[in-house]
């Protein structure tokens, strides 16, 4: 009760609402621009926080994070370009809905799911910080390795009609993830003497190339009449009936998002893919996934917006930044002399309450900001296609340049686009490759750390109960998918036999 009164006082006596809105809008803008990751959006704000009151500074950064995680879905749905890594899974059904003239509906679903995910994440942050932070500490390198394998097992259901091609695509993705300085030994791998490759190939380059550039190539010269329906520039929030239908997918997304947010290094990308996969598994309309399923948007969007709040749990409890964005927030805390940990809650309770209140204002404002901003975005993507293609290309290349300020990255994106075009031509699915790039470092580094701990004994993976549990689930996923593929092949064979 006292906390609620404190929150009310903050809302009425400080510019908290204005700062939260500013952070949210800035974050949405950054998230919507490919290449400007949530962490870059926040880092760009960092200099402005020096002169701000500590509480307002933290609110500004945290709400920018919330906005950026949501903003990534806008280009994912409208131009098949995930604005953030975590929005990659949204591309699949979001863009398909847009192609079918349902962009307003798709954006409405992602907006609504963003609000649901944000509220669930915030509730977890406020109510369950202590028990959840203990769970986060229970994770050891073996558990992270198993978590990576679990994430990778999703390829079994993201592989379309050929598990083999999906596996090959995932291995290609894992290969891309090995480029750069080896995190364990510091040795350069596959850099071919190029200093630009020492940092590795960022997943966003691969995603933007595979999805956006290959899409532009694929549609080049196609008559406008064949490009799908034009539609009113209105965002359609889900009806009551649709909200009921989305509940299951959102529950799955929120659950996985809560769990993944706690794990330093896991992040929203794995959460989104796992949520998409599980939403498909438990859906009554599995066949709609990949064809413009509302649940295919709701699950990953709820998930990555939940992560935006739950990722703060290990940060605030132990000072462990689980992602680049959390590291920027940690920087913001340290700039103002605030040390994360249990004492932060005791000695700077007003800042914590301000953070919760500001985040709540931001999540609730998402609806209003979205309804105002999204029609403009829909109008933009309905401009004549020759100009639209030019503008999308310009946006992609400008956004990518901002990551490391080098044209070398632009070249990587174009090569990834060519690879995407060839993969599409030969019928290889994209998502397993993206998953491989995202998970490669997590899997390899934790596998090696585990073996360093055990002196090379693989039995260490069986001694960790969390690892055993996660690996068992991964095996179940793969076996289930293999059985399904075998069954479908048998059915198809019977179908063509005389």
């Amino acid at each position: 009760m006292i906390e609620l009164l404190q929150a009310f006082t903050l809302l009425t006596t400080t510019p908290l609402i204005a700062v939260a809105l500013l952070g949210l809008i800035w974050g949405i803008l950054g998230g919507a621009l490919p290449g400007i990751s949530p962490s870059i959006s926040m880092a760009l704000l960092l200099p402005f926080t020096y002169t701000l009151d500590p509480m307002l500074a933290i609110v500004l950064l945290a709400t920018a994070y919330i906005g950026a995680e949501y903003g990534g879905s806008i280009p994912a749905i409208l131009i098949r370009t995930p604005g953030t890594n975590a929005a990659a899974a949204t591309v699949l059904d979001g863009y398909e809905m847009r192609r079918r003239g349902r962009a307003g509906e798709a954006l409405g679903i992602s907006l609504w799911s963003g609000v649901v995910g944000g509220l669930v994440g915030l509730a977890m942050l406020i109510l369950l910080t202590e028990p959840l932070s203990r769970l986060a500490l229970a994770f050891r390198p073996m558990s992270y390795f198993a978590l990576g394998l679990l994430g990778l097992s999703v390829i079994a259901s993201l592989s379309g009609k050929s598990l083999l091609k999906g596996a090959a695509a995932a291995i290609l993705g894992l290969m891309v993830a090995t480029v750069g300085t080896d995190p364990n030994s510091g040795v350069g791998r596959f850099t071919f003497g190029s200093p630009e490759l020492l940092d590795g190939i960022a997943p966003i380059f691969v995603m933007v190339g595979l999805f956006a550039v290959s899409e532009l190539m694929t549609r080049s010269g196609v008559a406008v009449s064949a490009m799908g329906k034009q539609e009113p520039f209105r965002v359609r929030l889900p009806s009551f009936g649709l909200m009921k239908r989305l509940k299951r997918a959102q529950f799955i997304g929120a659950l996985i998002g809560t769990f993944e947010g706690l794990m330093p290094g896991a992040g929203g990308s794995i959460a989104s893919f796992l949520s998409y996969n599980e939403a498909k598994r438990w859906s009554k309309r599995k066949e709609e996934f990949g064809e413009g399923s509302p649940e295919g948007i709701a699950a990953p969007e709820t998930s990555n917006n939940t992560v935006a709040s739950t990722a703060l749990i290990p940060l605030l409890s132990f000072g462990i930044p689980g992602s680049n964005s959390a590291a920027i927030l940690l920087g913001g805390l340290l700039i103002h002399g605030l040390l994360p940990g249990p004492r932060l809650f005791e000695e700077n309770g007003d800042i914590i309450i301000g953070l919760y209140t500001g985040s709540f204002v931001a999540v609730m404002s998402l609806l209003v900001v979205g309804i105002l901003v999204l029609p403009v975005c829909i109008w933009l993507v309905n401009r004549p296609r020759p100009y639209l293609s030019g503008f999308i290309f310009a946006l992609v290349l400008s956004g990518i340049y901002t990551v490391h300020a080098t044209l070398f990255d632009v070249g990587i994106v174009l090569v990834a686009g060519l690879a995407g075009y060839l993969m599409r031509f030969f019928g290889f699915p994209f998502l397993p490759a993206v998953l491989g790039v995202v998970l490669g470092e997590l899997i390899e580094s934790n596998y090696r750390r585990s073996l360093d701990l055990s002196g090379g004994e693989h039995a260490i993976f069986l001694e960790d109960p969390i690892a055993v549990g996660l690996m068992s689930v991964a095996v179940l996923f793969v076996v289930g998918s293999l059985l399904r593929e075998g069954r479908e092949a048998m059915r198809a064979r019977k179908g063509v036999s005389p």
Partner: protein
Amino acid sequence: MAVAALYYAATVRIPVSTLGGEVGPHVFPTVLALLLGIAGVSMALRALFARRPIAVKASDEPASEATPLRAFGLLGIGALYIPFALLFGYVPALFLLIASIALYEGATPSWRMAVIAVAGALLFWLLFVALLGVGQPQSILL
């Protein structure tokens, strides 16, 4: 299989490090090369022994609607952005990129098209450089 072989050849060149721990930096890439090789061989055998032709489309990705030449042409225009940005700087290169893609995609050459391309280049400059304050390529001639 070709990618697996090339990747394996590059894996052999990874230097050995005493900091590598129990599993050196070359082990994971070697396993990946082997796995991709196995996947490649499996796909080849599957295609060879299939009783009926296997459909090429095994992906959920929509098949290409453009001819490969046309698609590569668009990529070529995108690739030209790199030397143009180095030579002329961000805004002129972006103007050329937007204008040339618009023309390539069927826009009629006109003053209107040129104005849209200039406005687009300036808009992106305003967004990235003026508002967000992030750098963009600068001309080596200036």
